[in-house]
């Protein structure tokens, strides 16, 4: 089947990216707070938030593009079409979930 748009691994890859990014956010914030905690008075505008938020947007964009790429599959064979369409929806949901989990970085300071 090759690693085409219809490969079954696409059914889980988007959510694996979500999970990895979730760990990076949680672990990254914890380690960053240990190494160089920003001034609590700075609110959400700290180096940690301003570094992680744009990176999150990159991950979201990547997942969004992959969703579009899978959706573009021209497959007509029912099984392959099922895989490509389901994978596209899963990539899109992964993008939204990644964005949703990172949203609190806009409002909350990282280390208190």
């Amino acid at each position, binding site marked *: *089947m090759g690693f085409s748009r219809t490969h*079954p691994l696409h*059914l*889980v890859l988007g*959510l*694996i990216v*979500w*999970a990895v990014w*979730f760990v990076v*956010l*949680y*672990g990254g*914030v*914890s*380690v960053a*707070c*240990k190494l160089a905690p920003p001034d609590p008075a700075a609110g959400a505008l700290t180096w940690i938030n301003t570094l992680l938020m744009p990176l999150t947007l990159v991950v979201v964009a990547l997942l969004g593009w992959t969703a579009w790429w899978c959706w573009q599959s021209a497959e007509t064979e*029912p*099984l392959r079409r*099922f*895989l490509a*369409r*389901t994978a596209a*929806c*899963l990539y899109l*949901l992964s993008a939204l*979930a990644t964005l*949703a*989990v*990172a*949203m*609190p*970085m806009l409002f*909350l*300071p*990282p*280390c*208190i």
Partner: protein
Amino acid sequence: MSDRQGDKAQLHAQFERVWANLPGVGTLAAVNHTSVGLRFIVTGLFFFLVGGVLAMLMRTQLALPEQNIVGPELYSQLFTMHGTLMMFLFAIPILEGVAMYLIPKMIGARDLAFPRLGAMGYYCYLFGGLIILSSLLLNIAPNSGWFMYTPLSSSTFSPGPGSDFWLLGITFVEISSMTGAIELIVSILRTRANGMSLRQMPLFCWYILAMALMIVFGFPPLILASILLELERAAGMVFFEVAGGGDPLLWQHLFWMFGHPEVYIIFLPAAGIVSTLIPVFARRPIVGYRWIVLAVIVMGFISFGLWVHHMFTVGIPQLAQAFFSMASMLVAIPTTIQVFAWLATLWTGRVVWSLPMLWILGFLIIFVAGGLTGVMLALVPFNWQVHDTHFVVAHLHYVLVGGMLFPLIAGLYYWLPHVSGRMPSNVLGAWAFWLVFIGFNVTFLLMHLTGLLGMPRRVYTYEAGLGWDWLNLLSTFGGFIMAVGIAMFLLDIGMHFRFGRRAPRNPWAADTLEWAVAMPVTTYNFISLPTIRSRHPLWDNPQLPDEIERGEHSLACIQHERRETWGSDAVTGRVRERVHLPSNSWIPLQAGLALTVVCLGLLLKSYWVALAAVVVSAFILLRWSWHNGGHPQAAPWRPDDPCDPSLHSRTSDGPGRWGMLLTLMANGSLYASLLFGWFYLWTAAPQWQAPEQGPLDLPLLLCSGIGLSLAVGIYHWLTRQLRRGLSSRLAGGLWLVALLGAVHAALLVWVLLAAELNPTGSAHDAVLTVMLGYLLFHGALAALLSAMQAVRVRRGYVSAALPYEPLVLQPFWSYTLGVFWLGLAAFILLPMAW
């Protein structure tokens, strides 16, 4: 009798002879999935009853204020054992039992992929469960809550054997969850009926696939945590004690990394039952098949990102809490997708309100309410307010009883005719439903209010006049109504086998393949294996059961007394090989008994007995692996071996390889948990101390790693040759690999002995000791298994014509190499570079 009927009877007699359990006590050697699945279900119901009795004792104690029917110590044992029994010994095993019973029948197979593994899992479950239960009878049951928080469960505050019973018993029982999960995944992916692609797979299989994968990744953190805590309690090693550089919060993290996915592990199969039953009783296909598949996959992942919402009050920074709060709210979305799909199916169908549908209705009401309070608890400020109150108790019971017990009973009623050949009683069943439904809501709906009024969990009594008196009395009243309902359900089931009216074939007019099986069910399920082109085989072809029974489909023959079923492509479902399955075997029971002695030896601190039992267990398990593939007791090479398709042991990618890969995924999850523990203690433990100089001899470790790398390199070369049909240097090569593996392991022992680690005084050294032990175990096992393969080559069980086993072992070597170098980088090199 016509010739045709005579042929049919002869064919069935032949299949019955090959697939039947042994008579009398020989039934303990049964490995077929129908017997094993039913045993799981019956045993699960037994533990459910015991757990229910414990709940009634607690409710009796709480009925009135300041009672002393049950003292504080016994009360602590009761709530600990109630939670433990219901979660570990009832919910998961019974759902796995249902899955084990149903999955092969739903996918058109004759058995699960690893029958002996399922049978051993059952014995581990039974014996482990009895060990845990015995502690209650001896009045030494664990009493730290079902989540066993440290330091309460540590030796300082729980010096008795209660915690040990929990840690050893539950780890023992978890063997069964893990073996069940692995065999279910491989069976679903690799033994479906010809043509049953992923798109045509019954939704129940998607749910079980997700559940089983969650077990594979979700259970290892708890297994690791239990091993570490037992090592701390029994050997004094430091992991959770602050004084030596440990941290009690590490336990909470590891526990809830398992504990939260656990809720979904329980919910998913139950939701699978709902998604199976609703279309049948709505008389139409489910609305949004693809949306449900999508929701199941999303749920399987997102539910791993919620664990910290059980820890909102332990002092984690607000931003980190908010990540988990968002994830906790997100998980409601896939749940809602399923609820709307079910409602849409009911809305657009012609619903037949049979007995199972009553229980489904109860599920919809109660589970949705529980889900909504779950969203409330996902909000950090609200969570702080109601933490450790009866509100949480009410919420979790709404989710678990609503989300699991109601669908389970619906499923038991639905599939009961399959087992007994009789229909359930609508009258008794409806009475049972209403009593349970009303009793449950009287108990737990009011309990939300009790919690909001401030009553804490896990207190054995309370003062009068705090506003909780009438609520507790009514909750107890409701609890007893529910208990009467459950008793009526069990009475109904019991009477049904004798008095139920005879069920016609496919009595609910269902669409899935399990109803094509004869009723009561036979041990081989299908005399011939059909090709499937639709999601609703029985709706599209109502004659299919008769065609199957007449042997008109494929593989309707027995060759050399082998049990066989199709092995198929994981995606398309096209047949790839004939999977030959083991027959009745005493090995699973022997293994279960030997492991029980290991468990008891550790519990009684008779370590020599435990060690001897470990040796015996290892011998039994290796003997098990010996009776495989080309062994005369399995499928020795014969000139008339089928070749289109071949027997799986003649191929390079049979189910065993998939089983190995899944085992390694679980193993990897355990190793990742150890890495997490290392980094967590390093960054968060208040008194973490690492020596200036790393205690391990780096050059020696590098030599050990080079030996391992050479072994793996040679092994890969040998398997490449084998795939090309060349096996002339196989035996010698395998001996060389085994030797290099042994050198690697010996050097690791040297490193361990030379390091003079102090695991009882320092968490740093304790984690390093565990890590080295882990690597040593893998290196030694890989070497031993390779030596066995070399002997098998000499015996003719492995060859160019029988290349399967070395290819199954190959990922294990790669994994051993990976964890070694990763361990070296994370545990040795990174701290040096810091």
